[in-house]
């Protein structure tokens, strides 16, 4: 809507109008002049030159004379008379402007002319004359130019003037506009040509590729056949020469040689076609870049320097090249499939395949970008909302189903789902938000933080969940010793730690059930060993958590684990170091599964631990993110394919609302609490709930002073210190800080052997077993299993060595290997890795704890009975 002109003073307005009109009038007048100039050639009064009598022909009166006549000037004074002389010469000018009253023009009488012979001629045709030119040429100074030329010039100028007047433009000529249009058309044509060249190059490439593949196949086939024939004849007893039966050698050679030559030729053609395609892609890129450059010039990026513009263009060029190459690769693949459809005898199915893919393409093209991403992501298994199954069945069902799918994607339900996922991504933001302030938030027991956390994960506000939540978030933050100490404080534990090596990722877990009555924060060091120099005095109270899935051998585990889980705070703890065989790089890592799923956890782990990444095959140079993504995907898929292949698994997942794929499987496992992924040194992956019920690990019998002093009826009081061996124990040396065989004589005398045994077992269970075991679903499922059954199904090698458990578990999926006959809590009701891990811990405890070792009669007890009898004090302290 045009703005209203502001009110003007009428006087001013009139002045403006006048000025404007004045200008317009000037222009009009000029235009009239010009139009006169233009119009004149058409008027009869102005005769065209062509009609002018030839110069040579003499008229009665010369032009000059006529002009003069018209002007009222007597021609007598002029040059000698011509053939025709006018006897009546005009007299001196009259009051009519130089013309005499007797001037024929004035009087209207026809002039009289005298022919050379004296004959007078009246009237007649006036000599042809360019009156205008005559008038002008005689009366005004025209630089001696021929009148006609001047008129032409004037005409041209006038035309221009008139044109500009009409069009209102004074700058551009129509020809310039035409040029612009032509240029644009040329460019468009050029683009089309480039596209066409690209399409041709693509076709040739695919054709050449097919030919190469076919030729190589032929060569290979011939070679195989030849070999078989040779072997056939070699085996014959009579050793008939193969030449007898086979074609002449030279022909054979020619055949194979011919095939090889053809293969070579096909390869050369392929290389040529590839080069040609590259050239076409670059030409396409260059034309796109030229357009960008043009735009940059037009826009005149005054805010940017020349260098910046150049850089920007370069960046765009790279992006275009990559995008074009990717697009071409996809189109090539598509073309290959098209050719495959043609070649393979599919009968009617060919039509079906073509039709459905075409319908899909048409539908897909019309989707908004965000939905395109969903569809493509689901097909690529990229964790999009819509499962690939839904997309595929819709594609195969055709238009109607695709329309429904499209409709479904835009319904409120899906939108809500998308929104909720977006909200969950807020969790990521939350971590970032609190990064740096996290310490403060924890220290101050910030309720706002808690509220947000629980809101996000729809928290059950149990202490355990709280720990894991914080653990999960803290795991994403570069851990420092200060954080550890603050976490400790948050949970009421004491101690402080020095700053650890930066970049180390820490996962924290609190153990509220410390026997000594104090919380101890266990810090799981996922990868890097903690060097002694990094820990000061305070660090000694910083207890590294034992890897719950790391059975290790006694020589490896005994010390580390006991130091980690020691219930005796007064015992001197030595952090595990590389020297003392403590937890080092090569251990089973337990990684929290975050929002990005199993693969995301592994990717982050590799990114944070480049040394480990190298061990897994990273060359140290490639983009670690990209490498980690691929590697994590491979590892995860490899580990989960066995599970997914189990009969009934897909149905079970679907039944529970999960997609029957790796992603759905991981989600299902998380739902049942398996929120951790364990990765061993060989790349084997298992999902776990990361619980452990067996704390300070069973000290070695040797550490306690020998087998004889183990429980077998004798009273052996294991002092606290003994169960928390000092650093020496970590190296496996059998030194014990505390004395064995200390007993309380009074108690001894009061209890019989059997009672004593029971008491010892009870104490061992109370000390070393987490009360949570009573509620654990695995052990509940195993309620009726006897301990001997358990030990039978879980051999010692299942928990020996660094990767014993992982190795053993994965070996169970090999053909011919029997699965342990133990109850499980997996989706299909079978034993899962997590179940087996817990059984392994129990088996180790039963076998190795001195209090239980060699105790007869235990084998017949069921799990339920055992825990009931000896675990009655669990949770009381």
């Amino acid at each position, binding site marked *: 809507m045009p703005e209203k002109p502001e009110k003007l003073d009428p006087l001013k307005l009139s002045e403006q109008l006048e000025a404007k009109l004045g200008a317009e009038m000037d222009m009009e007048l000029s235009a009239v002049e010009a139009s006169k100039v233009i119009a004149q050639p058409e008027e009869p009064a102005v005769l065209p030159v062509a009609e002018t009598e030839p110069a040579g022909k003499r008229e009665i009166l010369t032009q000059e004379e006529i002009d003069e006549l018209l002007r009222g000037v007597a021609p007598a004074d002029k040059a000698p008379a011509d053939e025709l002389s006018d006897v009546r010469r005009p007299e001196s000018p009259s009051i009519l402007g130089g013309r005499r009253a007797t001037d024929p023009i004035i009087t209207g009488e026809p002039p009289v002319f005298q022919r050379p012979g004296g004959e007078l001629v009246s009237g007649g045709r006036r000599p042809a004359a360019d009156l205008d030119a005559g008038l002008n040429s005689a009366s005004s100074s025209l630089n001696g130019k021929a009148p006609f030329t001047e008129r032409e010039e004037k005409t041209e100028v006038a035309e221009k003037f008139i044109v500009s007047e009409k069009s209102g433009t004074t700058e551009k000529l129509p020809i310039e506009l035409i040029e612009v249009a032509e240029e644009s058309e040329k460019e468009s044509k050029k683009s089309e040509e480039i596209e066409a060249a690209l399409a041709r190059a693509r076709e040739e490439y695919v054709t050449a590729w097919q030919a190469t593949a076919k030729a190589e196949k032929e060569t290979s086939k011939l070679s195989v056949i030849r070999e078989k024939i040779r072997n056939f004849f070699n085996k014959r007893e009579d050793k008939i020469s193969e030449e007898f039966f086979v074609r002449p050698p030279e022909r054979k050679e020619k055949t194979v040689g011919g095939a090889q030559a053809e293969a070579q030729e096909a390869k050369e053609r392929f290389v040529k076609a590839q080069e040609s395609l590259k050239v076409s892609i670059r030409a396409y890129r260059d034309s796109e870049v030229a357009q960008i450059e043009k735009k940059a010039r037009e826009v005149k990026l005054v805010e940017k320097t020349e260098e910046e513009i150049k850089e920007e263009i370069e960046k765009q060029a790279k992006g275009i090249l990559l995008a074009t190459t990717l697009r071409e690769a996809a189109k090539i693949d598509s073309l290959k499939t098209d050719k495959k459809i043609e070649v393979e005898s599919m009968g009617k199915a060919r039509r079906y395949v073509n039709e459905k893919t075409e319908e899909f393409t048409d539908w897909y093209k019309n989707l908004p970008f965000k939905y395109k991403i969903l569809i493509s992501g689901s097909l690529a298994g990229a964790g999009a909302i819509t499962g690939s199954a839904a997309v*595929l069945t819709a594609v195969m069902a055709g238009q109607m189903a695709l329309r429904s799918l499209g409709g479904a994607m835009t319904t409120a339900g899906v939108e809500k789902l998308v929104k909720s996922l977006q909200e969950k991504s807020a969790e990521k933001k939350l971590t970032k938000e609190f990064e740096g302030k996290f310490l403060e938030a924890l220290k101050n027991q910030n309720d706002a933080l808690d509220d947000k956390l629980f809101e996000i994960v729809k928290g059950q506000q149990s202490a355990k969940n709280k720990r894991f939540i914080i653990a999960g978030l803290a795991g994403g933050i570069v851990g420092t010793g200060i954080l550890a100490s603050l976490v400790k404080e948050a949970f009421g534990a004491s101690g402080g730690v020095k700053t650890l090596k930066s970049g180390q990722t820490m996962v924290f877990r609190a153990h509220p059930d410390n026997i000594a009555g104090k919380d101890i924060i266990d810090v799981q060091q996922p990868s890097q060993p903690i060097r002694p120099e990094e820990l000061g005095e305070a660090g000694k109270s910083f207890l590294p958590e034992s890897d719950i899935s790391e059975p290790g051998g006694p020589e490896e585990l005994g010390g580390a684990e006991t130091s980690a889980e020691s219930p005796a705070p007064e015992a001197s703890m030595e952090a595990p170091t590389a020297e003392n065989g403590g937890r080092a790089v090569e251990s089973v890592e337990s990684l929290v599964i975050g929002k990005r799923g199993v693969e995301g956890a592994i990717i982050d782990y590799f990114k944070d631990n480049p040394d480990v990444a190298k061990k897994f095959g990273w060359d140290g140079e490639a983009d670690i993110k990209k490498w980690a993504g691929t590697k994590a995907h491979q590892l995860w898929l490899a580990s989960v394919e066995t599970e997914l292949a189990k009969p009934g698994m*897909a149905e079970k997942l679907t039944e529970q609302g999960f997609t029957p794929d790796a992603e759905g499987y991981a989600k299902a496992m998380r739902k049942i609490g398996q929120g951790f992924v364990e990765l061993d040194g060989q790349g084997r992956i298992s999902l776990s709930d990361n619980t452990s019920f067996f704390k300070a690990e069973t000290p070695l019998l040797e550490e306690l002073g020998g087998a004889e002093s183990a429980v077998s009826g004798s009273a052996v009081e294991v002092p606290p210190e003994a169960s928390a061996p000092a650093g020496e124990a970590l190296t496996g040396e059998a030194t014990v800080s505390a004395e064995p065989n200390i007993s309380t004589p009074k108690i001894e005398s009061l209890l019989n052997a059997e009672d004593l045994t029971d008491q010892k077992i009870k104490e061992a269970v109370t000390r070393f077993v987490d009360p949570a075991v009573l509620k654990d679903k695995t052990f509940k499922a195993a309620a009726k299993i006897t301990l001997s059954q358990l030990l039978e199904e879980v051999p010692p090698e299942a928990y020996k060595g660094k990767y014993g458990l992982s190795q053993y578990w994965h070996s169970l999926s090999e053909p011919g290997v029997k699965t342990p006959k133990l109850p499980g809590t997996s989706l299909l009701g079978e034993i899962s890795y997590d179940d087996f891990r817990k059984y392994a811990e129990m088996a180790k405890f039963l076998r190795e704890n001195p209090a239980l070792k060699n105790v007869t009669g235990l084998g017949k007890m069921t799990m339920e009975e055992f825990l009931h009898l000896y675990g009655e004090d669990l949770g009381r302290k």
Partner: protein
Amino acid sequence: MPNLIQQDVLKELGINQLPAERQEEVLAAMTEAVIKRIILRLVGELSEEKRGQLEEIADAGDSAKISEFLAANIPDHETLVKEEVVSFKKDMQATVDGLLA
């Protein structure tokens, strides 16, 4: 500007670094190519008779029935789909490497 989830997907597909207008272009080309492969592979697993049955069900446009049909006739179709996607990515990578070399 794609949101976080979409960015994750684009990242997974390896095209998050491209300019926005190029992303859509490449995405469309890749998706079309992979769909063709998958459909061809799945149909290739069926006998002539079964293909006919599939076509009949398809004409009805009932994707639930297609799902049942696939489960009954190609029980491991999910695996086949994954294989094709992996194979597609591999081939794409090889082609791109060849063209950029």
